[in-house]
């Protein structure tokens, strides 16, 4: 197999300041193969991708494009444009780097053509829309081409970015965690497309932390650890466990969850309606309990989370927290009442880019960390250090800029922020976005270990994540809760039917 | 010729010019006059420029005191901000003269270019050219001291000649001033096409009005009267069929020279008098054409009263214009 490599990376190095991130990475990509790259958060996957795609300058090593009809040629893109022109197309990890929010879908789908040098000078909206439609159709995208990107959900934005990359007829396609904000239906569409590209001989590098993706797609698995390749697995059947162990440098073992019961209710939700025409939601969360709510994208999980946190107002219904009526007017009131939310989409709604790790962690708790309005930095720093330790955030110090962290570690900082103080009701909306397997289990374990004294509510699209973490799993569909399961003896079939909004829903 | 002490030793005297306004031709010419006379006298001149910051200008007087100058010329500024600063200089034993700002101090000679006279000369010419009743446009921005003084004369004239009908008053100091005033004047002319006389007692205003009059094609129907003069004003007045009929002006360079001379007199123990007035000259389009005056040098050469004022001119005083 190794002889039909179309893209070859040899001894690639990269340092930021005096921290070495890539210590000589060598990797081959083969035509018509999906190579999955696995690695813990901060292993250097995105950095590698950014070098290949011309965003970062490499610190050493070589890259080569190899083809049947031409001699191997040095591949040294100075800009993303050069990489694209050479046929190496990338969908980056940060979705907002993939689309331009103020422009419409059609322009976004054809963005690279507009900036290509061969493109016609004139911008003909009709023609652009036709081209965009062709691009969208290939992906089976059903988005209004005139809609502005800023009005779309994250999943739709991601699909737009992927569709554009696909349309290039690339030689090498790189996808950096493309499914982290997609629903399984959309992910399935993506996989079907990747299958087609594979048949057409495209070399695909696929980065993901989701085992289900990896199992579905991989022809080869390459593990990466601390900036070097730590294992290549291409003998069928693929040794996934070995790959995970190689990427972590140790074995992980999965403790079965012992589902707990709780007697003391912390939050009672009574007849809450979060959307026009939706059925009311009834819900009780107990002390020490970890509850996961799952459901497809767009069923109202975020809406419910935001309602509980005071960002939105319910249309009707009441809530009782700690035996007292709870109707937060603002996020500030919610926090004061002990209700915390780890919001989804960290780049938009979590990370303060100008702040370092420490300042990001302390953000909601300034009041508790200050006297007469003056911040006590020693307390702030101590809290940050504790969280970095607890969650194993990979960084130099608590003073690091957020932009210097890998995606998964940024996500950990977001969780750390809200774990740094005791909550009564702890809500996490897609907290595992971009977090590697072992870190995910660590976080889940931390959540469970610290669960006493509060109720914990998790919103996840991935069922696996719910199964690994929760005592109880609720299913949402059409802006309301349609099913409830104890995580002990789950009827998976019934649960999946509820998720899909099947017969049970109509029976309800 | 022997100069009295302290001017007998070249370079022994240090004086400061403390300016409020500096941007523009008038101020540049004034400065060149100051420099020329200072050079002729052999004194060391420091220029402190507050760039229209009245508070800073007051501080600069103190700074000049700290620099150990013997004399200070205060050029423009606000009475309120300069009065005390000037007094502090006097208290420090420094001789002070003030140009175009009243510092209300009997010990400080006031150099003036007499704005009232400037306006009067121009308006008298307007009466002479156009009779006693006409429809006028007037360019004025309140709050600027010399313009306020020129305005007083205009108000007096309107009282005196009932036939003067002020159809429109406008003006702006948005820069470039001529361009902004041209826009306004165009509007005024569209609204009042029967205006006969434009009184624009500041040459930047007059330039703007002239542009508007030309653009509207009214240059043969309207006459412009103004104050102040510069090389480009001369060119504008000399254009064929120019509407700009006359201007009254003092030579800013001469005013600069007079300022230094008055200060020198004080330093030499002489008294230049409390009000040192540099008389204005009326300059008409006809003068410029008849005498073939093309620029400020020609003007000085051919209108001697413009080139030199025998003000503050004791016998020992060197004349910087003497070649």
């Amino acid at each position: 197999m190794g002889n039909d490599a179309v893209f070859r990376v040899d001894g690639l190095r990269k340092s930021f300041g005096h921290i070495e991130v890539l210590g000589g990475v060598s990797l081959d990509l083969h035509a018509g193969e999906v190579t999955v790259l696995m690695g813990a958060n901060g292993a250097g996957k995105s950095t590698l991708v950014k070098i290949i795609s011309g965003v970062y300058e490499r610190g050493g090593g070589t890259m080569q494009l190899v083809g049947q009809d031409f001699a191997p040629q040095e591949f040294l893109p100075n800009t993303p444009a050069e990489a694209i022109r050479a046929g190496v197309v990338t969908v980056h990890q940060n979705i907002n780097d993939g689309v331009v929010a103020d422009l419409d879908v059609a322009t976004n789908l054809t963005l690279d053509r507009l900036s290509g040098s061969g493109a016609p000078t004139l911008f003909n909206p009709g023609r652009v829309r036709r081209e965009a439609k062709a691009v969208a159709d290939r992906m089976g995208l059903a988005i209004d081409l005139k809609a502005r990107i800023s009005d779309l959900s994250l999943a739709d934005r991601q699909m737009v970015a992927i569709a554009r990359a696909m349309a290039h007829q690339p030689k090498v396609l790189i996808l950096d965690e493309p499914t982290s904000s997609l629903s399984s239906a959309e992910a399935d569409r993506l996989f079907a497309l990747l299958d087609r590209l594979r048949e057409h001989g495209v070399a695909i590098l696929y980065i993901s932390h989701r085992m289900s993706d990896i199992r579905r797609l991989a022809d080869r698995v390459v593990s990466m650890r601390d900036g070097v390749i730590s294992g290549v697995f291409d003998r069928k059947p693929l040794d996934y466990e070995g790959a995970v162990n190689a990427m972590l440098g140790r074995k992980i073992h999965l403790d079965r969850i012992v589902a707990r019961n709780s007697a003391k209710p912390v939050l009672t939700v009574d007849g809450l309606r979060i959307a026009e025409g939706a059925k009311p939601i009834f819900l009780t969360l107990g002390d020490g309990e970890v509850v996961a709510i799952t459901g497809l994208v767009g069923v109202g999980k975020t809406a419910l989370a935001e309602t509980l946190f005071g960002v939105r107002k319910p249309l009707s219904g009441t809530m009782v927290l700690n035996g007292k009526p709870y109707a937060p007017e603002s996020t500030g009131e919610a926090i004061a009442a002990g209700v915390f939310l780890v919001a989804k989409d960290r780049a938009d709604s979590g990370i303060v880019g100008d702040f370092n790790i420490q300042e990001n962690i302390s953000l909601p708790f300034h009041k508790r960390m200050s006297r007469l309005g003056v911040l006590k930095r020693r307390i702030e720093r101590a809290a940050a250090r504790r969280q970095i330790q607890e969650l194993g955030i990979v960084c130099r110090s608590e003073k690091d800029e957020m932009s210097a962290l890998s995606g998964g570690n940024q996500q950990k900082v977001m969780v750390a922020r809200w774990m740094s103080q005791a909550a009564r009701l702890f809500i996490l909306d897609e907290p595992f976005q971009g977090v590697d397997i072992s870190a995910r289990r660590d976080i889940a374990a931390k959540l469970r270990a610290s669960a006493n004294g509060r109720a914990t509510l998790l919103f996840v699209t991935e069922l696996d994540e719910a199964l690994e973490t929760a005592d109880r799993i609720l299913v949402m569909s059409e802006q309301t809760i349609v099913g409830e399961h104890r995580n002990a003896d789950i009827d998976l079939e019934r649960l999946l039917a509820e998720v899909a909004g099947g017969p049970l829903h109509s029976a309800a | 010729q022997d100069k009295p002490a302290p001017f007998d030793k070249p370079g022994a005297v240090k004086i400061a010019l403390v300016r409020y306004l500096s941007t523009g031709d008038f101020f540049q010419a004034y400065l060149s006059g100051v420099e020329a006379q200072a050079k002729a006298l052999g004194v060391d001149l420091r220029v402190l420029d507050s760039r229209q910051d009245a508070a800073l200008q007051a501080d600069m007087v103190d700074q000049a005191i700290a620099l150990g100058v013997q004399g200070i010329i205060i050029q423009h500024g606000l009475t309120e901000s300069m009065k005390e600063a000037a007094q502090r200089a006097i208290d420090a034993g420094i001789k002070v003269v003030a140009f175009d700002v009243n510092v209300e101090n009997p010990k400080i000679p006031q150099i003036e270019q007499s704005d009232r006279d400037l306006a009067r000369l121009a308006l008298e010419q307007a009466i002479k050219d156009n009779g006693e009743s006409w429809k006028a446009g007037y360019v004025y921005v309140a709050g600027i001291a010399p313009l306020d003084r020129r305005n007083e004369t205009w108000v007096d004239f309107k009282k005196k000649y009932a036939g003067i009908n002020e159809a429109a008053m406008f003006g702006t100091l948005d820069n470039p001033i001529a361009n902004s005033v041209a826009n306004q004047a165009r509007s005024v002319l569209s609204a009042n096409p029967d205006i006969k006389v434009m009184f624009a007692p500041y040459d930047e205003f007059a330039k703007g009005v002239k542009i508007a009059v030309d653009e509207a094609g009214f240059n043969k129907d309207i006459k412009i009267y103004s104050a102040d003069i510069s090389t480009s004003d001369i060119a504008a007045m000399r254009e064929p069929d120019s509407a700009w009929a006359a201007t009254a002006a003092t030579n800013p360079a001469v005013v600069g020279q007079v300022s230094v001379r008055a200060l020198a007199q004080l330093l030499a123990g002489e008294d230049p008098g409390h009000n040192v007035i540099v008389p204005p000259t009326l300059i008409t389009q006809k003068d410029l054409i008849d005498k073939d005056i093309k620029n400020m040098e020609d003007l000085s050469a051919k209108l001697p009263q413009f080139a030199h004022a025998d003000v503050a001119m004791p016998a020992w005083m060197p004349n910087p214009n003497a070649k």
Partner: protein
Amino acid sequence: MSSGWVRMAAARDHAIRYGFIVLLFGLIGYFAIAADGFVSPQSAVFIFQSVAITGVLALGVTATLVVGGFDLSIGSVATSAMMAAAYVMVVLEQNAVVAVVACLLIGAAVGLINGWLIVYMRVPDLLATLGMMFLLVGLQRIPTEGRSIATGMTMPDGSVANGTFGAGFLALGRHRFDFFIPNLIPVSVVVLLVLAVLIWFFLEYTRFGRMMYAVGSNERAAELAGAPVKAYKIWAYVISGVFASIGGILLAARLGRGDIASGNNLLLDAVAAALIGYAVLGAAKPNAFGTAVGAVFVGVLLQGLTMMNAPYYTQDFIKGVVLVVALVFTFALSGRGKR
């Protein structure tokens, strides 16, 4: 949703799209009644003429707004170009073509430097162009030591500058084209209209223009999609600089001399026009058509008020009030708006 609600939303959409245009025509109607002689071809031409220079500057600054930048140096570029034109013709005794070329080169050079500072030296836009503004305000005065430039002027070294403004150059400020009525439309208005159409077409209907919007909205995404983001940004500043220098040429041609002025008011008026443009047709973003309408709007307002004898300070006041009200209207209703 009830159809009443839909109708209301549609009405609101209309209010956003056409509110400003309606306001403009309302204003014209009001002045037509209140001020004699406001309605005439000459008056219309004059309104365009009075905003030609700021309008050209505003179109240039629109380009920098589109890429998410800002150019505070345009006023000083215009006055520098004016001084340069006068210097070239009067002191160096060159002809009109040389003067125009010199101005355009200055504009392009300043734009390049601004762009280089912002793109490669990563100096924030406001900062870089503010520094450039101070620098140019000083620089343009150094050759003549702060004197205005006019034929016959005395140079610092005592010599007399005898060059003259070429007739061709002055024609840029004074010639009028026939248009139904003889001698109706001045060159400056033609320049404004041509540049407005050009930049509008460029921004809306060429891929370069589209990419500039993309760069302004999300630089990183545009770069990752393969756009030469740095080049686009630099180009925007070059456009801005060149347009400002064209404004300076028109200014020199109108004044017939090189006048000492800071250009601050040109800057503010141009920025006002470009920002008012956000409100036109509910764009809520920089756009060339809006900028042109914004410039005309200010022109109409000032022309009308001046004709009604309103003193200059009430004009500023009303300009401010109208600006604020018009914009509240657009942005509050549209619910978008973010720079």
